[in-house]
């Protein structure tokens, strides 16, 4: 069916060897592939490179090196990519209902009827000026703008920050609706990882300017666990814990691959890792004995 066709298709986003230095920060050779027809969640601490990666994808920053292909092409037309950034890309003095008149020259496929119906559905007042909208209304306006030109790829950078649970639910429901078409793809960067839990098919974890994990969310859930224990850790065991933390009482916790759980003996507890646990674990890296291949992401 639809998805079998998609599985063999071209990835919606292909990135190879992407490097970008911005002051003290550096994207250090990012390779990324986003499968068409699925939602990919992009997570990582502040400064891990999520926004620089997204801005590189959108052509808003020029990479120092590397190859980026969106929708199979080195220069995707903006028309086929819908973008929701943390700030709406409309002038503050425009009236929301007339945004279309200003931006449609950029988007040959702009569908004013669709735009208006999205505003109505989201309850965004059409006579208000863009600069007077609440945070939630701005995101909804950005979403309406992104979808008004019928994109194939939707890129969202921190759309849910500052939104209440009702507005976040509305936002994720719109993404689900967008994904009913198997030729559509979404990339969703967020700190509110619970928004990804039952939405994202794939997960990309960034840490220190590199990709620390890339795979399906289900696979991540099955592969990683949080380990808790008391007392000393053998050096073999300590070496496989990511983001190892010790408490004042001598207990430890951190993220491990469940395949390594035998190294810990019997006095430990394991619980399934949440997406936040993955972010924290990969950001902390391993304490010692990192192999060269893993050392870069875990340093």
């Amino acid at each position, binding site marked *: *069916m639809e998805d079998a066709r998609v599985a063999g298709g071209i990835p919606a986003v292909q990135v190879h060897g992407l490097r970008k230095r911005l002051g003290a920060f550096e994207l250090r050779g990012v390779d990324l592939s986003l499968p068409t027809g699925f939602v990919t969640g992009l997570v990582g601490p502040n400064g891990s490179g999520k926004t620089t990666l997204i801005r590189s994808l959108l052509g808003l920053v020029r990479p120092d090196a590397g190859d980026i292909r969106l929708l199979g092409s080195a220069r995707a037309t903006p028309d086929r990519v819908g973008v929701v950034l943390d700030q709406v890309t409309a002038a503050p003095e425009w009236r929301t209902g007339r945004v279309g008149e200003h931006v449609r020259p950029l988007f040959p496929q702009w569908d004013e009827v669709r735009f208006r119906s999205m505003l109505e559905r989201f309850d965004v007042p059409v006579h208000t000026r863009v600069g007077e909208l609440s945070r939630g209304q701005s995101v909804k306006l950005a979403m309406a703008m992104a979808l008004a030109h019928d994109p194939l790829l939707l890129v969202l950078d921190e759309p849910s920050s500052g939104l209440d649970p009702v507005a976040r639910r509305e936002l994720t429901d719109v993404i*689900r609706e967008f*994904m009913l078409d198997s030729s559509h793809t979404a990339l969703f960067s967020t700190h509110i990882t619970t928004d990804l839990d*039952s939405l994202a098919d794939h997960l990309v974890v960034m840490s220190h300017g590199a990709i620390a994990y890339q795979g399906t*969310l*289900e696979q991540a859930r099955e592969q990683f666990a949080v380990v808790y224990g008391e007392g000393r850790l053998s050096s073999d065991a300590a070496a496989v814990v990511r983001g190892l933390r010790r408490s004042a009482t001598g207990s430890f916790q951190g993220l491990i691959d469940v395949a390594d759980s035998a190294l810990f003996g019997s006095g430990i507890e394991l619980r399934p890792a949440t997406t936040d646990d993955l972010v924290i674990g990969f950001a902390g890296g391993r304490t010692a004995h990192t192999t060269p291949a893993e050392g870069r992401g875990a340093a």
Partner: protein
Amino acid sequence: MAVVVSSASAVPMYEQIRVQLSDAIIGGDIAEGEMLPSLRQLAAQLRVSIITVTRAYNELVAMGLATNEHGRGFVVCPVGSDRAAAVMADRVTTAISEVVSAGRAARMDMATVLGKVEAEWKTRE
């Protein structure tokens, strides 16, 4: 039929979906030759990821309860009475294994556990 999933359950979402659909197929609530809901429709409706539903459907295929007809979607297979009986027997075996584990963890003896099974059985008669 209505599928209901809970993210608070210890049972993974794909498994919750799979069990409800396989029960519906074996119980005849979804007839042979009928289409299962589209992957994407069901994912949006249940507010789960597309991969979660894909995994549930793939397991139904592995159980021989559905086939993936390219270009159409997932279609319910004929469920012979042998096949249905085998699937049901598997479920009983799995449930018994859980009862035995729980009983041993609670340090009950076998007779006590069997007694509880018998008592539960009789409440349904």
